[in-house]
């Protein structure tokens, strides 16, 4: 999956207009990045990458790029 498509999935998850997320955003600046979004993100990782990441690692992420780093080996530019 490309990083661009990954960010589109994240846009959908946090109810952004598609194409809003560029990667540099702080998660605290995304209004809909809340506990329900974290659960949705876990489902996203499972569905699209067959990956399970401990919740503590997701919660430790500060930026969208940090979220991308969780599946860095599965993303292409």
């Amino acid at each position, binding site marked *: 999956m490309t990083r661009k498509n990954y960010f589109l999935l994240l846009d959908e998850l946090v109810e952004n207009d598609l194409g809003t997320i560029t990667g540099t955003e702080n998660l605290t600046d995304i209004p809909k990045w*809340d506990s*329900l979004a974290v*659960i949705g993100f876990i*489902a996203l990782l499972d569905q699209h990458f067959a990956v399970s*990441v*401990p*919740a503590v690692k997701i919660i430790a992420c500060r930026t969208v790029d940090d979220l991308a780093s969780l599946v860095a080996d599965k993303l292409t530019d």
Partner: protein
Amino acid sequence: MPAFTIDGVRLVGLATAVPGTRAQVQPTSAVPAEDLAKIMASTGVRGRHVAGADICTSDLCAAAAERLLERLGWERASVDLLIFVSQTPDYVLPATACSLHGRLGLAKSCAAFDINLGCSGYVYGLCVAAGLMQSGSARRALLLVGDTISKVVSGDDRSVAFLFGDAGSATALETSGSGRMHFVTGTDGSGAGHLQIPAGMFRAPSSEVTRLAHKGEGGNMRSAEQLCMNGPEIFNFTIREVPAMISAVLQGAGWNMEQVDGFVLHQANKFMLDYLAKRMRLPPEKVVLALENYGNTSSASIPVALCESMRERLARAPAKLVLAGFGVGFSWAAVAIEVDCPHIEPIITL
């Protein structure tokens, strides 16, 4: 995780009871209206039945048991085994099963004991009861399963405030040449801290400090004597273990998905159930969803779902069911069970 089989026991009756007090999902100071819609969409809960101070889990189970004994025409002296499954017992001691034994007027020869499990408790209860009955130690059993989790939930904790409802159930089991149940069970104790009440018992006794509410993650207010739930880790656990469990129990029974008449999973929340069903490619019309008016009733969620959503279907013809409980502990158990028109009561409201 291979399945194991218990022969010679049939499920012949089921009744559930809920408190009369309804709590609708409404905005609070902790959860404003704009956040509420999203929470309701995720949980699938619009309202719950909650027990007041004068109703315990045992009262709900006793009401269900009385109704079931009457409808089945069982002599009380014919009940050989009573198991009470709950994480909200009446007392630290004695076992609530013993006091229920007295309330129901059962014989002194009847064995009675508690099992402390939640989400997986109903299926574990079936497993333990059926296993004892297979040994010949009991011919008839009452499995009483329920919880009043609303009593230990903070109204200012948005992760749990609108999720949990209260219910109690009674299941009648009888030995029979034709009965067969296939079980899968499991535990991952490394997850014990992800769904717990941290204080109030012997590891961390109750004190002024433990009774004081404090702000936790996400701004949720709760005391150490109230339920603390790590939703994301619990979701990780369910994705990791539940599909494999369902697959194993189907394999143990020699069933394919199309043969199953109902998949009754622990009614944790709608998002989780929808995702699990999609992931496991379960036929959507066969996955029971009964959260809307009852919430997550913990150990009672499977019997509530059966009474609420499958009563008419189960009265018409024999049915193959997969019942799966998973959650607190982490603990999980599933059963593939064929039922032949058991007596299912409409849900009783106290």
